[in-house]
């Protein structure tokens, strides 16, 4: 235990890094994913095609490859991210946005077509009917799948460790080298760190799900 106390600042910083990776990427992915989902259901074929291409590209590329590209490949196009943290956020956001988009799109498809028709018949334009009628109903049905995307994202942040971001997984690597005899404790601390991020959100998701449920 004193081992953990000694290393507390390290553990705390690693935990905060993982948490902020997940939260910042989560917010970016939610925004980008919503835009992509809107594109996928828009009446403009070019926008639909672009969004479909994006989703298929990122959904079918391993996240590590996305990281590699942003960390090293991107120098070929004369662009470099100002920090490793931002590189990691970019990789996680771009990748996760594809999954957010798919979760939202399935939610949009679950909203009966008559809802959007009634909105259009009232004179709402595409954007208005999406934002005031379709998406609010879609978000309710997508809380569980979005929750899964969030948990996957929280765990996926660990790939950043391989790209020199000092997160929980990087801490595990570092301490297991320097303090091999305390390995079990280190494991417990790291796993607890991830659980602290994912468990409360699983709980929040089920509460949200019940709060937002709509009767039909």
């Amino acid at each position: 235990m004193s081992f953990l106390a000694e290393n507390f600042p390290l553990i705390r910083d690693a935990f905060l890094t993982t948490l902020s990776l997940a939260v910042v990427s989560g917010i970016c992915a939610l925004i980008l994913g919503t835009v992509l989902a809107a594109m996928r259901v828009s009446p403009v074929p070019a926008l639909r095609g672009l969004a479909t291409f994006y989703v298929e590209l990122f959904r079918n590329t391993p996240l590590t490859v996305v990281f590699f590209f942003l960390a090293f490949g991107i120098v070929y196009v004369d662009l470099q991210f100002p920090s490793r943290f931002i590189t990691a956020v970019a990789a996680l956001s771009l990748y996760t946005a594809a999954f957010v988009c798919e979760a939202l799109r399935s939610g949009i498809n679950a909203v009966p077509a008559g809802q959007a028709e009634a909105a259009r018949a009232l004179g709402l334009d595409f954007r208005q009917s999406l934002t005031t009628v379709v998406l609010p109903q879609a978000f309710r049905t997508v809380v569980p799948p979005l929750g899964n995307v969030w948990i996957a994202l929280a765990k996926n942040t660990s790939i950043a460790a391989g790209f020199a971001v000092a997160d929980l997984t990087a801490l595990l690597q570092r301490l297991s080298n320097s303090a091999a005899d305390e390995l079990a404790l280190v494991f417990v601390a790291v796993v607890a760190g991830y659980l602290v991020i994912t468990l409360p959100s699983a709980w929040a998701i089920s509460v949200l799900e019940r709060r937002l449920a709509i009767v039909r």
Partner: protein
Amino acid sequence: MTSRPNGEPLVRLSGVNKWFGELHVLQDIDLDIARGEVVVVIGPSGSGKSTLCRTINRLEPIEKGEITIDGERLPEEGKQLARLRADVGMVFQSFNLFAHKTILENVTLGPLKVRKQSKGDAEKRARELLERVGVTAQADKYPAQLSGGQQQRVAIARALAMDPKVMLFDEPTSALDPEMINEVLDVMTSLAREGMTMVVVTHEMGFARRAANRVVFMDGGRIVETAEPETFFTNPQSPRAQDFLSKILNH
């Protein structure tokens, strides 16, 4: 109601054709609807009644022909189309009230978002309309908590809140339990009496006789016969209308 109102047609369909893939659902439709006129559209299942109704606010685009409302040609897409749709009220068979909004919010949504009315004005008017259709007590409930008849009356109030020039009804009573049909038809009849221009797809002959100026009989994507309700029901001219009426009258 026997005399046809005069003046420029409010809605004009000329040479309208529509296909669903291979299926030619609307064939050379010509139809003028005068201001204040009530037209009932009747015909067998699959004859294109709903499609006709939905082309008038361009929920269904057409491939050929022209539709004008108040002299203005229906725009293809975008903001102008949305603006024109605001002037055309629509009532669906399945009500389509916004499930996540209260009854009051359902009625104020259009005025707030499209007409940019203030919240106070929109709510005042919405309450008047809800009173008119007899669902004042339900204003703060959600659609699923209302009966079908109540939901459909709210849907009518929602459309009326936009002060439409014309109202489209696509089988507004066919999803209702029999005991709720009249409460909806009564609202529609009083609307017709007050001079609302209406296109109503329905098989309710009582309503057609009471409220309609004209009956349009469709079959196979064409308008086969047009007549005053009394004439149409008692003395249909075309064999297909005779056949159709004998079937629904025997039920």
